[in-house]
């Protein structure tokens, strides 16, 4: 479990590399920092109030709270968490990693143009007002969606749908980058992106297999299943994206392979401990096909989801959540076994997440727009934020 938490932490540098490689050189640091900084701000927020809000004693199923959990001061370090046999602190940390990675995912949609300090404030507010309640609803024993039977094994709804739809809302509110569609915007360093995808996959095992502890202890059969489905979905998705591209453009890109992996991992997240390996492969392949076309939408509709946070995480998350209702076989049966009720519950979860996270983001962003401004100045955008905001450049290859 501790190992799983450590693995999930590695997703943050993984995401930083994944995103950082895709932007232009002039924004590589600011984009990476948008991930890394979540380790700092949400890392503190979670210990101070986040955990209390998400997993404190339920206030009617809508939010948690326990004064004793503020700053984790009231947690007896030897006390095991409910009946899981692990110390509660370990559970706090594991959940904390999810809280950190989620806002960082959003940064993909707003890369290269959002004001950095507004992003920081947004992150904290969003984590507190959107993420914590949603996590409570879906994962806390008394959360209203949990009690209604919505399945979300490792964060398809709480993490990926919430981050994806919020990303879309922000991207639309920000407007496109000044040279979106006009200039050739190309990734500065795809080596980083591939490496990041590798670290993400690695970390995702912590995400999904570690979540098995919510079901059993010591981790065993369910963790093994989650591991297998995670691996299978990612592999099938990578393959499917490649074939898709081959058919569409006659080429097979490395960014495509990496994107496929991520799409498959996203889709299997809510399902990891609930479906069979072959179902996971189908889910992964479908996710790639659907996300591939979802990504093309932005050119159609003209919004600038820079690195496709919505196209991959949002769409992949929705698809995964619904397909969980189709393919699940444990602990409940899905559509495949002729039972449509779980699909309904999943759809409820998806709907709630879309409306709540989308609406919440809209409100927060509207306030921030009025107060701090959402967008970097034009000069910052032209020259890149690395120099203006951070006083640094990513690479100095020409020094003697």
């Amino acid at each position: 479990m501790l190992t799983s938490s450590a693995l999930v932490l590695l997703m943050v540098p993984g995401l930083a590399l994944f995103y950082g490689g895709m932007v232009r050189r002039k924004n590589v640091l600011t984009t990476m920092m948008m991930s890394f900084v979540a380790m700092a701000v949400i890392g503190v927020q979670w210990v101070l109030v986040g955990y209390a809000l998400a997993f404190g004693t339920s206030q009617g199923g809508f939010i948690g709270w326990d004064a004793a959990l503020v700053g984790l001061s009231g947690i007896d370090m030897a006390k095991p968490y409910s009946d899981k046999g692990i110390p509660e602190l370990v559970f706090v940390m594991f959940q904390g990693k999810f809280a950190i990675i989620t806002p960082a995912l959003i940064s993909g949609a707003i890369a290269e143009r959002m004001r950095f300090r507004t992003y920081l404030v947004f992150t904290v507010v969003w984590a507190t007002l959107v993420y914590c309640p949603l996590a409570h609803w879906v994962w806390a024993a008394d959360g209203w969606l949990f009690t209604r039977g919505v399945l979300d094994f490792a964060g398809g709804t709480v993490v990926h749908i919430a981050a994806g739809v919020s990303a879309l809302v922000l991207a639309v509110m920000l407007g496109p980058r000044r040279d979106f569609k006009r200039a050739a915007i190309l990734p500065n360093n795809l080596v980083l992106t591939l490496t990041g995808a590798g670290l993400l996959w690695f970390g995702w095992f912590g995400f999904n297999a570690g979540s098995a502890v919510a079901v059993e202890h010591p981790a065993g059969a369910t963790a093994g299943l989650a591991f297998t489905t995670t691996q299978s979905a990612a592999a099938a998705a990578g393959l499917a994206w490649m074939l898709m591209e081959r058919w569409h453009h006659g080429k097979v890109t490395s960014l495509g392979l990496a994107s496929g992996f991520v799409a498959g991992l996203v889709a299997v997240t809510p399902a990891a401990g609930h479906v069979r390996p072959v179902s996971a492969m189908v889910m992964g392949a479908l996710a790639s096909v659907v996300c591939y076309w979802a990504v093309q939408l932005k050119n159609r509709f003209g919004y600038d989801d820079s690195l496709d946070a919505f196209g991959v995480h949002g769409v992949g998350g929705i698809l995964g959540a619904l397909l969980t209702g189709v393919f699940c076989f444990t602990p409940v049966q899905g559509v495949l076994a002729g039972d449509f009720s779980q699909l309904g519950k999943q759809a409820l979860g998806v709907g709630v997440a879309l409306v709540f996270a989308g609406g919440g983001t809209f409100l927060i962003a509207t306030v921030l727009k009025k107060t701090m401004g959402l967008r970097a100045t034009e000069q910052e955008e032209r020259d890149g934020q690395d120099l203006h905001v951070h006083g640094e450049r990513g690479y100095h290859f020409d020094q003697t």
Partner: protein
Amino acid sequence: MKMIIAIIRPERLEAVEEALGGVLDEGDNYRITIDTVEGRGRQEGEVELFRGQEVHVRNVQKTRLTLCVNDAYVEKTIAAIQKGARTEPNGAVGDGKIFVVPLEEVVRIRTGERGGSAI
């Protein structure tokens, strides 16, 4: 004395270097300065892909050679570059150009020599 500046395809550099070695006096130690530039001309740029979307890159990467030579060597040098840089058999768009600029003075830093002998 002239400064000869040639823009060629990166992949032809090897052939050009060989051809130059043949005509210049110093054999393999002829003097040249090389850098990498982006060129735009009649040649189409590259098409790259970004998640299923075609990105057209207007400019093409080219190699630029600079050779300063005495007047007697100008035509030899041009001929050698042309020979090496041309895509067989009839040349292709993007093979590049050679520009000749007058050169008034040359100084060899090591010795302070000037003019034709310093080149």
